[in-house]
């Protein structure tokens, strides 16, 4: 047997160019990092990074502009879809993206996301649902599971006091302006791959002028959940029982 050098090793996986080579401020194991990478890959594959104007939402991922190599505007908490609408209407050639957390999108920003969808606004929303307010210390989010302990539901979420988990993406899927809505997850390599396909479809819904596109990504917040990263990834299976993964609506094939 002869051993030889392999200078032309095939690259199976490498960091996408649109993802800045910089240490993120995210906690170890935080799902935001995976979603960032997927976004970078999709923009890159679609060749639209150079005309992307993204909107950063308030939440742990507000610093997305430090990691994604595209233009960014920072929105007020919850208002990213409205900010994106402003961008959209004056920049017909831009690709417009919002990146929002579940506190941002499903709580304070409910009106803005619903009406961006209702208008069929040609924007794409990446919605990272980690079931909590990561940035402010792990409080209850609209998406928190029943029974889940958070810093503002120390005894676990009680439907009577704190309400039910909100199926916001299902609600958005009802709106005719929503061209594409899907729910992915960072739980496994396979689901991550599936999520990437969803993101691509949601971007294409905009590029093909179909309407509003959104992908909810079930993600982990190990610190907010009081778990190790590995435990938190396993927990995503429990989360998916309340929030089933899959395509919720695809109107891009119509008309």
């Amino acid at each position, binding site marked *: 047997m002869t051993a030889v050098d392999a200078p032309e090793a095939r690259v199976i996986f490498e960091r996408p160019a649109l993802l800045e080579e910089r240490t993120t*401020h*995210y*906690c*170890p194991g*935080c799902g935001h990092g995976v979603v960032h990478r997927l976004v970078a890959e999709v923009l890159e594959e679609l060749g639209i990074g150079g005309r992307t104007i993204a909107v950063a939402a308030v939440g*742990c991922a507000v*610093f997305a502009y430090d990691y994604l190599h595209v233009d960014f505007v920072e929105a007020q908490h919850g208002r990213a879809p409205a900010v994106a609408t402003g961008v959209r209407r004056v920049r017909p050639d831009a690709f417009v993206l919002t990146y929002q957390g579940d506190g941002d999108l499903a709580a304070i920003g409910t009106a803005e996301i619903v009406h961006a969808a209702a208008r069929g606004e040609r924007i794409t929303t990446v919605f990272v649902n980690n079931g909590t307010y*990561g*940035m402010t210390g792990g409080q209850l989010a609209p998406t928190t599971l029943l029974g889940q302990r958070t810093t503002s539901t120390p005894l676990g979420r009680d439907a009577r006091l704190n309400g039910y988990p909100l199926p916001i993406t299902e609600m958005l899927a009802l709106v005719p302006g929503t061209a594409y809505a899907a729910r992915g997850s960072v739980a496994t390599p396979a689901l991550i791959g599936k999520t990437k396909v969803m993101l691509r479809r949601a971007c294409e819904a905009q590029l093909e002028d179909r309407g509003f596109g959104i992908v909810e990504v079930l993600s982990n917040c190990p*610190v907010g959940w009081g778990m190790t990263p590995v435990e938190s990834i396993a927990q995503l299976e429990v989360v998916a029982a309340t929030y089933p993964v899959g395509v919720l609506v695809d109107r891009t094939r119509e008309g």
Partner: protein
Amino acid sequence: MERAIVISGFGGQGLLLCGRVLAHAAMVEGREVLWIPSYGPEMRGGAATCTVIVSDEPIGSPIVDRLDVLVALTTPSLEKHGRLLQEGSLLVVDSSLVSVGPRAGIELLDIPCTQLAVAAGSDKLVSIVALGAVLARRPVVGEAAVRSALTAIVGAKHPELLAMDFAALETGMRTPGALPAQA
């Protein structure tokens, strides 16, 4: 007499809790104390700092011009707070993570806190080890008060961990370099 102590490093080193122990001990001794946290932009594992001011009189400013003690558990925290060290200040660094040369007029205590903490039971005890070392040189508060503070704070929630904390504190207090320099 007012003493300002800063403990600085990254989250996960237990330094906010350690500051609380110190503050609680001061309270137990009937003294005035002010505990001020501050976090960096990183969610976890990022920079974190805790200032504790202990005094025999009501405390005015929460911001100090000089530090009596700086516990620097990382290099950036030394860079950030080192400029407040003055003649006679005590600087404790974790030699496992920070390398530093002697500074004129400043008492340097260079001890492998992380290693000692791991030896005492967990790398989360690093700040408590450092606190022990500080107290050996600067008895800002008495050991008894610190023990009762640990009992109140750690003991209340995790009595099973208390012994480990005591061990870490002792390790810090008895670590060779911690004994007064002239000794």
